[in-house]
């Protein structure tokens, strides 16, 4: 096995273990920590594929900003260990079915795939920061601006909701 392959299996294993532990953990903080492990492992996979910029942004945005907010809210609300009601236990049965179905679907897709769909390290234009910014600000500038407008509306909505009593 070559070194990149070993690194891939370590990172992929970490991501899967983190994802499983995210669901199985009893305490919300432990679940949030597992999600951070998944995010960082994914960033490592991007780095392995040569996408340095995407890897760094993955950690800054998802691992840093978003998950810090998750942890912050969980800490602020002082959320305790989750309680199992009879309904949430019943939800396990269809969940197990869905897991089997999804796993079968993914396995079938991988089995059918040829060389061409396998991910390979990206180089040149598409991996570089210049390439990404050209795509964002030239080729897809209108969708990009629309998205930022949507986020702005969401931020304003949050401010209005928070300020309702004072208005």
């Amino acid at each position, binding site marked *: 096995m070559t070194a990149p392959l070993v690194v891939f299996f370590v990172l992929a294993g970490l991501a899967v273990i983190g994802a499983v532990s995210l669901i199985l953990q009893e305490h919300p*903080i432990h679940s949030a*920590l597992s999600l951070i492990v998944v995010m960082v492992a994914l960033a490592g996979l991007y780095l392995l594929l040569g996408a340095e910029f995407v890897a760094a942004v993955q950690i800054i945005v998802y691992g*840093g900003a978003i998950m810090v907010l998750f942890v912050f809210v969980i800490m602020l609300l002082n959320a305790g260990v989750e309680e199992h009601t009879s309904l949430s236990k019943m939800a396990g049965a269809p969940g197990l079915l869905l897991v089997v179905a999804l796993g079968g679907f993914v396995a079938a897709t991988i089995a059918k795939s040829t060389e061409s769909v396998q991910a390979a390290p990206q180089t040149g234009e598409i991996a570089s920061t210049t390439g990404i910014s050209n795509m964002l600000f030239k080729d897809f500038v209108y969708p990009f601006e629309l998205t930022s407008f949507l986020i702005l509306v969401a931020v304003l909505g949050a401010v209005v909701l928070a300020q309702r009593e004072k208005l």
Partner: protein
Amino acid sequence: MNSLLTANADLIITVVKIVLLLFIVLTVNAYLTWFERKVVAHIQSRWGPHRVGPHGLLQPLADGVKFLFKEDPTPAGVDKFVYYLAPLLALALALTSIALIPFGPDPIRLFGHDIYLGIVPPDVNIGILGLFAITALGVYGVALAGWSSNNKYSLLGGLRSSAQMISYELAMTMSVVGVLMTAGTFNLKKIIEAQAHHPEWGILSWNIWPQILGFFCFFVAAIAETNRAPFDLPEAESELVAGFHTEYASFKFAMFFIAEYTSMITVSCLCSILFFGGWLSPFPASWTFTHYFPSLVLIPFGLWVIWDGVRYETLFGRIILPGAGTAIAGLGVLFVLFPNVNHFIQGPFWLLSKIFVFLFVYVWMRGTLPRFRYDQLMSFGWKLLLPLSILNVVGTSFVILAKMTWWGAK
């Protein structure tokens, strides 16, 4: 055996570099505590540590031994896993960020290998982004320590710290965008080289002049990110006992301590690299006689240490201090005698001097400024720093656009 050595030469070099850098950073950390206590003491008209060793120079050693031998109780009701994870996370992330800093322009040629000063190869393209990624994760050490300690004061400290870091990270990231746009790269080495395109301008070609607004925002936000005074609300001792590390004792507390000082060093490195020309000399490149500047600093300093040492009150000091002074002055003489060595140390010398100045400013601010109130902290970050840094980005892009359209510069 020999073939095994040559086959894995890069790996061995990297491991040796990591061990060396770790040793240097931890030693510097230890003496930074001594430096801070001395400077703050003198600001407050006190002497500071002066009992353990000459001028208190062995105090960090005594502190280290004390940290190791203190009782290390684990409070009841803590979340064990997270409680042990938090200091590890804080220390590991702080030390990792140092690995991304380049410390000198030229490689040393040893055993047929070019060895760069710095662990990550200088052609890594995400330098500054990688640093921000590590800083972004750094908040977990403090936040999780506060949460897992099962203590209301710790929880408040952890909450404050996460809120503070979320707020100031925005301003910190935005404030360097101006520098990144003028340099056109994320690579720290290229950012420094971009500040040297007018070699005859010396200090005037550094980023600090066009980006002075960006520097102000960056430095203030970075101090807040490292939880240092006047932004040390997460550990405000008058309100929260000791904040997030109230329940940590012995070496687990020392790990938080080392993490804080290491991030101070990282921020000082970043300030010098992004805004103050990194390893560039402040003098014009044609003034080659300024290459003797390091010796001009080291020799008088060494002589002063000898002069101070021979009249020191204890016998130990009368032996140690002149010895250290001779070593320092000897280093200065060595640089004069060997032009090759002298040429090589120019870059690291200027970078380390700048880092030292920023570390002094850190300590100076701690000795001078009172702590912010929580609402002041929030309104300062969101209502002043963030708009200013955005203004800086917009202004810089207009200047670059004007240069491109009217002067045809690239």
